[in-house]
């Protein structure tokens, strides 16, 4: 609370982390200098699929400045591979959803085969990155090329070359789910539509690539790992297991991380190899990924092909929905079934669809592994659903917004149970929200449908093509299994907080200081946020899946509550009153209604200490610290409507975004300024994905997008202004009433843009059912248009 009693939660406090970041005093992984540090460079496969005949390191090992050169064959003798899946699905899911999984275990360095261009086969360590790259060039790889598998469909064909022979299949996984009786409902539907939708391969492309630095301390035989990661506890767990060291002797820290977006959300082979090398060499070892490497070894995403069939009536009411989709997973599957199942679980979105059948297959291909990236399966689902609903509307001559309304779950129907499970194994409950309200707000923010249709008609008469497109999504946020928080009142009276969450730009040092400041009636500056360090808390999940605000705030709530009770007991002892007479105020605890009768938190902390002459009453144990692990009952549902008005240049095919509006609901908002920042950033990534970004492989599995010249991250000049309106449906699932916001922005734009472009070019009857949507395709669609 401020002095005036207004809470910090809900206010747009400026960020505490800004000072160091604005003045060049941030510390990213590449900024960490350790004495006698060595530098690693990986030797990466130039071929998509090949047997490794030999790796000759002799010239590399003898090159100037080289401390060590190591191949995959040697490493395989020393270290086991990564586990087969890092994000496991709980037994509540595995026991209820029909599935099969076959996931291989990726070694630190490839040793038998290479399975994608960019896969590491060897590493050299030298006294500079320059020297390491010189040495890396001297490694002689003898590879026996194998036919490359470059599409998911081809991977699943009967005669496809096997990528992991021991699995005897290229099927990494499959599942099916649904409800009702789709066959009957589809057969009985007055109308049916079938379409194929392809959501292409693109990637998070954070401005900071990955990086790992490790230091082995021989005195304690312990390892410290600094990694640009979102999951410090996972890294510690895997390094400990694979290097055979107790977790207590492994510490993982994430410093300032320059964007993660899911890409840095699992353990990579380099996270294992670098610590191993540091221990082996007895000197710190650093590896900083460069952009060229990044494109060919850091996770890609999306890349799903959907065959959708929908049955509907004359009013556009959707009666049945069937979706069979395939995921092009690349050569390994570290995240397992989580992302494809997200797709299935989010498919029906805000709509009431009683008969649903979804089946999914995840295929291995000779490409970079496909894992979670902002949206994590939801953009693909939303693309299919939002496109097909526009096609349903088009086939009936109805307004797409109207067809959405007719199918939408209304506010009065909340909480709503779609009758399917979330990936945590719990039945989905849309706990709160007003979907039609958000849709209307987004449309109003771009001027309204009626006004737009008039503009559109007028423009067409002038030979200009304007279009309106909607993208609506719901998002399960705050998924488990857990997140913890430790709160400690220290001798200075400041409140120390640690957690398994970590920031890659989300502003956690600010928002959690706001929450804790309110809880303890202190100033945010008196809250010490110390995340991203396994030394700070025993167990942690990490930051991904729009979960940290929800789960950490809930853990904090419970930890704070327990700690408050203890602090009150001690304060009551000091003030010789009843705990029930006390309140938190002004950085201390005082008797209600008696201004002078108070003790500072510092005094309480001092009194709480163990030892002689402490100030604790009988029965109160020493220490003023609580750790609470919050295990969320299930996810809580955010949602948003995106509305885009575009103008298409029919000759060139370029698209200009005239207006873009987002009506968004993430429940109670801790910091409105930061929430809007998350929405804007996500939206820009979604727009970049649909219009500019494209990871292209050729028939031989060669990656054609090898630099940022090819992979087009949108610039400021390419992105629109964004209008945001908010709804606030408080979550009933956590004490603060918050919902997750991190991913949402990226989920809807591909659908919104595809719909807008199709709407603009309706006179040409062009459909846009694949992404990316490039000017050439648009120009081509116009030229190929069937005569009116």
């Amino acid at each position, binding site marked *: 609370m401020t002095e005036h009693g207004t809470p910090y939660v809900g206010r*747009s406090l*400026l*960020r505490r*982390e*800004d*000072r*160091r*970041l*604005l*003045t*060049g*005093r*941030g*510390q*990213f992984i*590449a*900024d960490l200098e350790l004495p006698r540090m060595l530098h690693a460079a990986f030797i990466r496969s130039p071929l998509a699929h090949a047997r490794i005949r030999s790796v000759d390191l002799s010239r590399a090992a003898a090159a100037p400045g080289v401390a060590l050169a190591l191949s995959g064959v040697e490493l395989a003798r020393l270290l086991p591979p990564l586990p087969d899946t890092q994000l496991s699905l709980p037994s509540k899911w595995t026991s209820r959803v029909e599935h099969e999984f076959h996931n291989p275990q990726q070694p630190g360095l490839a040793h038998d085969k290479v399975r994608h261009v960019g896969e590491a086969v060897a590493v050299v360590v030298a006294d500079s990155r*320059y020297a390491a790259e010189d040495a890396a060039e001297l490694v002689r790889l003898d590879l026996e090329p194998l036919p490359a598998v470059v599409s998911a469909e081809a991977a699943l064909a009967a005669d496809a070359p096997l990528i992991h022979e021991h699995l005897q299949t290229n099927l990494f996984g499959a599942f099916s789910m649904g409800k009702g009786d789709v066959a009957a409902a589809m057969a009985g539907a007055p109308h049916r539509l079938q379409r194929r939708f392809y959501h292409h391969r693109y990637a*998070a*492309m*954070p*401005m*900071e*690539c990955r990086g790992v630095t490790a230091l082995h301390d021989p005195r304690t035989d312990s390892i410290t790992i600094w990694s640009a990661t979102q999951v410090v506890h996972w890294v510690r767990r895997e390094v400990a297991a694979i290097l055979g060291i107790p977790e207590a002797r492994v510490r993982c820290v994430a410093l*300032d*991380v*320059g*964007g993660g*977006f899911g890409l840095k959300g699992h353990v990579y082979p380099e996270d294992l190899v670098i610590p191993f090398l540091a221990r082996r060499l007895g000197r710190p070892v650093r590896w*900083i990924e*460069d*952009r*060229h490497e990044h494109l060919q070894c850091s996770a890609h995403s999306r890349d799903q092909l959907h065959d959708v069939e929908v049955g509907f009536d004359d009013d556009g009411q959707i009666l049945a929905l069937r979706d069979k989709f395939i995921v092009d997973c690349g050569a390994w599957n570290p995240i397992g079934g989580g992302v494809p199942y997200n797709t299935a679980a989010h498919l029906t979105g805000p709509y009431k669809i009683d008969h649903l059948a979804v089946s999914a297959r995840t295929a291995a291909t000779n490409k970079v592994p496909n894992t979670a990236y902002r949206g994590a399966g939801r953009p693909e689902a939303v693309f299919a659903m939002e496109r097909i609903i526009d096609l349903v509307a088009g086939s009936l001559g109805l307004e797409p917004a109207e067809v959405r309304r007719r199918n939408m779950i209304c506010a009065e129907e909340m909480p709503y149970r779609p009758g399917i499970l979330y990936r945590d194994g719990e039945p989905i409950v849309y706990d709160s929200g007003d979907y039609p309200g958000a849709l209307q707000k987004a449309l109003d923010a771009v001027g309204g449908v009626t006004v737009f249709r008039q503009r559109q008609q007028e423009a067409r008469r002038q030979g200009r093509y304007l279009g309106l497109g909607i993208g609506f999504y719901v998002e399960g946020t705050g998924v488990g299994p857990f997140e913890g928080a430790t709160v400690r009142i220290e001798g200075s009276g400041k409140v120390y907080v640690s957690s398994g969450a970590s920031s*890659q*730009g*989300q*502003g956690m040092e600010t928002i959690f200081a706001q929450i804790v400041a309110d809880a303890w009636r202190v100033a945010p500056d008196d809250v010490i946020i110390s995340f991203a360090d396994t030394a700070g808390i025993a167990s942690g999940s990490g930051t991904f899946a729009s979960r940290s605000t929800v789960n950490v705030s809930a853990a904090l709530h419970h930890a704070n509550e327990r700690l408050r009770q203890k602090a009150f007991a001690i304060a009551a002892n000091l003030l010789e009153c009843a705990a029930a007479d006390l309140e938190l105020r002004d950085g201390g605890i005082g008797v209600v209604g008696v201004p002078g009768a108070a003790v500072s938190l510092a005094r309480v902390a001092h009194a709480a200490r163990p030892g002689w002459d402490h100030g604790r009453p009988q029965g109160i144990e020493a220490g003023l610290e609580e750790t609470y692990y919050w295990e969320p009952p299930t996810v809580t549902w955010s949602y948003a409507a995106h509305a885009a008005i575009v103008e298409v240049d029919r000759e060139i095919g370029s698209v200009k975004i005239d207006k873009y509006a987002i009506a968004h609901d993430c429940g109670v908002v801790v910091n409105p*300024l*930061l929430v*809007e*920042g998350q929405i*804007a*950033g*996500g*939206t*820009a*990534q979604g727009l970049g994905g649909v219009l500019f970004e494209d990871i292209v492989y050729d028939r031989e599995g060669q990656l054609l997008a090898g*630099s*940022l*010249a090819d992979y087009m*991250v949108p*610039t*400021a*000049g*390419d*992105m629109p*202004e*964004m209008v945001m309106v908010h709804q606030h449906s408080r979550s009933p699932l956590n004490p603060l009433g918050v919902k997750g916001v991190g991913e949402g*922005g990226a989920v809807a734009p591909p659908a919104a843009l595809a719909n807008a472009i199709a709407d603009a070019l309706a006179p040409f009857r062009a459909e846009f059912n694949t992404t990316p949507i490039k000017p050439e395709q648009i120009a081509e669609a116009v030229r190929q248009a069937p005569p009116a």
Partner: protein
Amino acid sequence: MSEIREIRLTVNGKSYQGRCEPRKLLVDFVREDLGLTGTHIGCEHGICGACTILFNGEAARSCLMFAVQAEGAELLTVEGLAKGDEYHPLQQAFHEHHALQCGYCTPGMLIAALDFLATNPAPTEDEIREGISSVLCRCTGYVNIVKAVAAAAEVMRGARQPNPAND
């Protein structure tokens, strides 16, 4: 001729000296030899702009220069923007408008914006968007960066006004 070269230069108003191979990129020299790690590396092929510094008063991508080219030059990096504890108006505006999230592109963005405003002190929103399109940001969607640059431009124009009291 590929042996180590001595380089003397001025960075943020201070004299520095270093020694390195001719092939050492200026951005690596600034970060490693001069210890100024505020300037970041995002691509090493001149697209992302994270490495943008002022080279003799003009924004340049320091990943596309060799350190030896900076002999006798004057550089400004992000560390040179603030005056002690006092933010440069651009830094202040970025802070107030939440124009940074992870902070990785921020040093390059600040320097690029500084140089852009030097060539166009009263830009329109479209001109700002074009003017900062030399630096890529993945976190903010640029919305707040544009607002911040506009706000800073206004402050910087105001600071340049002749003081009426002196007339």
